[in-house]
């Protein structure tokens, strides 16, 4: 997860969509990020960053950590942000509405957190664009387990 970014949201060939995972819990976000990257096949996967809990390690949501994570994974092809619940949803929604702190092309993706994260990272790693990544993550809602 290198820190260099291309800035802007011009998109472009060969540049992967970034994925940010926002949970109330730091360990949950970190673990889901590791799991999604692992299931995406290791190797050359799309950039993934976790933004879990508060900066002091507590449970909650931190706008600061979310913005930092989004900037870290931004390669210019957009950033898919997946969230767990409550304040994570509302914080990302309000940051997107604010429009000047997240990288251009950052989007809240409506998807189940764990399954959506795996789908998003796998799809982003294949070189798909942000629409395709968001669609794949959202489709995870449709998979019935019973």
């Amino acid at each position, binding site marked *: 997860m290198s820190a260099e970014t291309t800035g802007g949201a011009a998109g472009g060939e060969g540049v992967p969509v970034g994925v940010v995972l926002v949970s109330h819990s730091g360990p949950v976000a970190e673990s889901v990020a590791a799991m999604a990257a692992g299931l995406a096949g290791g190797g050359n996967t799309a950039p993934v960053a976790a933004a879990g809990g508060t900066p002091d390690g507590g449970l*909650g*949501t*931190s706008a600061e950590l979310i913005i930092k994570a989004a900037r870290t994974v931004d390669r210019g092809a957009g950033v898919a942000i997946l969230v767990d619940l409550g*304040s994570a949803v*509302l914080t990302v929604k*309000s940051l997107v*509405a*604010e429009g000047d702190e997240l990288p251009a092309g950052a989007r809240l993706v409506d998807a189940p957190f764990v399954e959506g994260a795996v789908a998003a990272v796998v799809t982003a790693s294949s070189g798909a664009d942000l629409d395709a990544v968001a669609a794949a993550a959202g489709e995870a809602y449709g998979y019935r387990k019973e």
Partner: protein
Amino acid sequence: MSETVLDAAFFVRWMTAAAAVIDREADRLTELDSPIGDADHGRNMQRGFAAVVKMLETEPPATPGAVLTAAGRQLISSVGGASGPLYGTLLRRAGKVLGEAPQVSVEELRSGLAAGVDAVGQLGGSAPGDKTMLDALVPGVTALSTSFAAAAEAAEQGALATVPLQARKGRASYLGERSIGHQDPGAASSALLFATLAEVAR
């Protein structure tokens, strides 16, 4: 009342007084948040408004709109719970409506807050009667067309009226009928904002 003009200093006083009241009432807010929430509302609001006061002291914005917009942004960044983006959206949207005018009328403030309240409802997907902060904000903003005191009273009554309601939004909604009988913490803190507004306008 209609000739009253409110400048940036008034809004700074409002936010500063709100921070002090929230500080004083933090334990009560957290107590309200214990049976039906995760017992962090008082602490979260304290942290958020402390950040607002710090920002106002170090770089006080020059217009009423800028004060509210900057305060809203601080709340989104520093609260850590759902009340951050909700209150942040309320103040930021109101601030944007007030624009760059150096002074605003009470009616302009009312219409700014009304837009903010609409944005809160949209963000949370909630409506009055869901046992949320809207149950205090909506009557408070409406009564602002009468007076600051009437707005404070209406918001307080709205907050108290959440006691018999069943929560339909947020963590409290998981409790279903067991959420009945408790005052909504967000409505309680919303009432405090109107109480301090009336206090600084006096």
